[in-house]
């Protein structure tokens, strides 16, 4: 194995040092400038705090500028990345790759349609035999479990029984997604040289998958390659705007990350290929000691796995120049914020790993960057609060014109609003230059038509900028709450991610944005009464909070999204000319569904439906010899099911039954023999039309 040599290592360090200088120097200057802008003589502690926070925030936003600038230059002057240039030699056809898709309460039909599209796309490359597919379920809902099995069976029925597409459900979902993948590695990992990690909404073309294997084969020191997934399939206005921004600005930003991080890059947890052996050897995640939000299982596992891989000497590349990688984004603002709540905790947890032994500096920076993604909101709000306090104090407290005794001339309070305007425009420039760079690059590379043409592209950028300016303060408020909640030790639950079309109701918007609206009225009103001049500085933030409820509802609407598309707004290359993979996906979505024997679904189907029961039993492994107590407890559960029907069974009862093949087989035959009222607990009326109406048996009969 070739490890990263001293020369390349030095280059990475130089780039890191350069970026640090580029970020820190303007931060210090901006901080000093802010001190000049603020009233003086003033409240020293307040002024110092404001200047320091501003310096931090300025540095934070300037990172985006330097990343984008480097990315734009890289895309302009170098068409082939170092990773692709280094790729050499032919692919070992015996190198097997597992495509693994961890799922947790996802739409199984959507999951299987995605896999079918990838399967058929790979088949077109002629390299299908090198790949196996795994659906790794962590679902712990009885109905979801059974429907996943049925969707998998339907997929196998469509592509052929010999297809190497496997379904595995984990009984105990320890360590969530990372534990799910670790479980795969333990069971089957050493049969594969590589694994490609999919999210439930991921799609990757066969050409890209084979190319990734070639890159890994040609670069034996590489442990992980992360692709840049393009956002697809969005219909709500919010989703379409995010999709457009991702598609237009994403490549520039990713190229910038590629430039600065080189072989010590990012891993985002999906749409990436991993060399299995070093992953197994070095990337198992420990439980962090202690309780609260900072202890326990590592929630944002991807950054840590990349850092562990690199710590062991393997290269980690973020490779932006590979087409054919796709994902979906949250359809509404509230869905995005729910996801951010999990990410906030996961990233804050990394505070315990920043100074851990052996990690390379770029990965420590990745941890810090993740933490700052949320802490920056807290700092922004603190900046607004402190600056409001300063404005209020200057109104309410009479200035000291003679701070020292025996002076002839008064000291007038001085502040420079015109300098504040300069600083404001400069800050805006730092924020918007990355967008401008992305547009320039699109024009130079002749790709405007892929976004609907010049005028529509510009209109889309302007509207996207307006919307992102409105949403930024709303996100800031939520992220601040998330940070405080994590610091207070509150853990977040593990839930499925919202996908597909969804819309926010007025009630939901009121519930989540109501507090922000009240805050805007109180805070904004107070400042307007006491310091009208300063009010106008706060207005963009207060106005965003004030209109958050209707905005959140309207942008979640599918009709508005479709209307925007009809007007040619927020178009992406995948919409204008859908790639073959997306056509395959749409065909798979439209494929006829598997005929079911009965109308029953989920757990009920696994008991009643002769086909689904057979499928479920076939997928369960044979039960081990169990103790008398366990056998008796199962019998009691079955008797309860027979006597009182499925409604008497709790979720855990159902899972216990579903986990035991003998119980499932016995219960299936049992419910088909039941008469009268008890049969109706289970069997649809149409299946019982010939039954006589009989009185229910007495309790004595049941327990006999």
């Amino acid at each position: 194995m070739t490890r990263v040599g001293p020369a390349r290592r030095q280059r990475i360090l130089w780039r890191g040092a350069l970026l640090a200088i580029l970020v820190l120097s303007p931060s210090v200057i901006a901080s000093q400038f802010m001190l000049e802008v603020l009233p003086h003589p003033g409240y020293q502690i307040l002024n110092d705090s404001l200047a320091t926070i501003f310096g931090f925030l300025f540095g934070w936003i300037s990172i985006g500028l330097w990343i984008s600038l480097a990315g734009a230059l890289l895309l302009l002057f170098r068409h082939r990345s170092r990773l692709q240039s280094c790729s050499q030699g032919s692919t070992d056809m015996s190198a097997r790759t597992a495509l693994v898709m961890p799922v947790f309460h996802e739409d199984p039909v959507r999951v299987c349609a995605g896999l079918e599209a990838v399967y058929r796309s790979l088949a077109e490359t002629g390299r299908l035999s090198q790949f196996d597919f795994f659906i790794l379920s962590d679902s712990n809902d009885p109905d979801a479990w059974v429907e996943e099995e049925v969707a998998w069976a339907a997929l196998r029925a469509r592509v052929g029984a010999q297809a190497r597409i496997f379904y595995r459900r984990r009984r105990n979902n320890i360590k969530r997604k990372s534990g799910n993948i670790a479980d795969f590695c333990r069971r089957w990992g050493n049969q594969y040289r590589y694994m490609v990690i999919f999210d439930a909404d991921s799609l990757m073309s066969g050409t890209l998958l084979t190319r990734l294997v070639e890159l890994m084969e040609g670069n034996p020191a590489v442990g992980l390659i992360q692709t840049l997934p393009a956002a697809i399939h969005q219909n709500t206005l919010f989703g379409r705007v995010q999709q457009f921004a991702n598609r237009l600005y994403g490549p520039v930003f990713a190229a910038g990350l590629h430039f600065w991080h080189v072989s010590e890059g990012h891993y985002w947890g999906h749409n990436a290929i991993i060399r299995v052996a070093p992953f197994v050897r070095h990337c198992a995640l420990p439980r962090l000691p202690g309780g609260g939000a900072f202890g326990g299982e590592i929630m944002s596992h991807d950054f840590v796995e990349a850092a562990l891989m690199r710590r062991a000497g393997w290269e980690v590349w973020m490779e932006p120049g590979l087409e054919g990688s796709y994902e979906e984004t949250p359809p509404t603002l509230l869905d995005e914020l729910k996801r951010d709540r999990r990410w906030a905790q996961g990233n804050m947890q990394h505070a315990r790993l920043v100074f851990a032994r052996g990690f390379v500096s770029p990965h420590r920076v990745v941890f810090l960057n993740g933490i700052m993604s949320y802490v920056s909101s807290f700092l922004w709000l603190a900046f607004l609060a402190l600056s409001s306090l300063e404005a209020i104090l200057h109104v309410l407290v009479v200035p000291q014109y003679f701070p020292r005794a025996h002076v002839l001339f008064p000291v007038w309070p001085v502040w420079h609003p015109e300098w504040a305007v300069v600083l404001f425009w400069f800050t805006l420039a730092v924020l918007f230059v990355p967008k401008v760079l992305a547009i320039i690059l699109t024009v130079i590379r002749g790709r405007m038509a892929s976004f609907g043409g010049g005028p529509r592209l510009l209109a889309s950028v302007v509207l996207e900028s307006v919307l992102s300016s409105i949403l930024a303060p709303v996100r800031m408020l939520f992220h601040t709450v998330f940070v405080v909640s994590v610091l207070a030790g509150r853990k977040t639950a593990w839930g499925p991610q919202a996908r597909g079309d969804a819309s926010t109701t007025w009630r939901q918007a009121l519930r989540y944005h109501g507090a922000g609206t009240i805050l805007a009225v109180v805070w904004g009103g107070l400042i307007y009464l006491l310091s009208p001049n300063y009010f106008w500085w706060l207005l963009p933030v207060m106005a965003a909070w004030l209109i958050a409820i209707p905005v959140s509802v309207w942008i979640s609407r599918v009709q508005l999204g479709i209307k925007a598309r009809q007007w040619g707004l927020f178009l992406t290359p995948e919409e204008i000319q859908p790639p073959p993979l997306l056509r395959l996906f749409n065909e798979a979505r439209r494929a006829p569904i598997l005929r079911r024997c009965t109308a029953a679904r989920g757990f009920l189907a696994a008991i009643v439906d002769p086909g689904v029961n057979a499928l479920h039993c076939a997928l369960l492994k044979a039960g081990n010899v169990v103790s008398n107590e366990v056998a008796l407890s199962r019998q009691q559960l079955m008797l309860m099911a027979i006597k009182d029907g499925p409604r008497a069974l709790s979720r855990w009862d159902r899972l216990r039954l579903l986990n035991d093949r003998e119980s499932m087989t016995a219960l299936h035959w049992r419910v088909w023999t039941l008469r009268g009222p008890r049969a109706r607990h289970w069997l649809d009326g149409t299946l019982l039309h010939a039954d006589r109406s009989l009185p229910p048996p007495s309790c004595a009969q049941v327990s006999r």
Partner: protein
Amino acid sequence: MNFDERMQGRVVGMMPLDVSGPLEMRERLRSYLATLSFPPELYEAWVETACEGASHAGQAFARLQERMANHLAESAASVPHDARCVALWRLSVWLNADADVLATSSLGPPFTRQSMASERTRP
């Protein structure tokens, strides 16, 4: 006595809950096979055989399972005649798939267990 035997003794023994009239028994078995989309021209003979002399539906369904297993043994010689073969027969009828193919196609690659070597270390 293993679990299956205990279960059989317990559950099949609960006759008062079962359909017991000959007509209802036949209807229930027909309904079962029709639900599975088993061809009507075949299942009538199966129903008759299973219900003849049966005192309750549990007994009739047990005979039906035996018939299913025998049918599978005749039509798919390579399929082992074990506890899973009735489920395999149902699966092959439902999915309209060859039972031989179903029996031989793997539901998952064989386990080749290894440990995540770094699990005991702390970053």
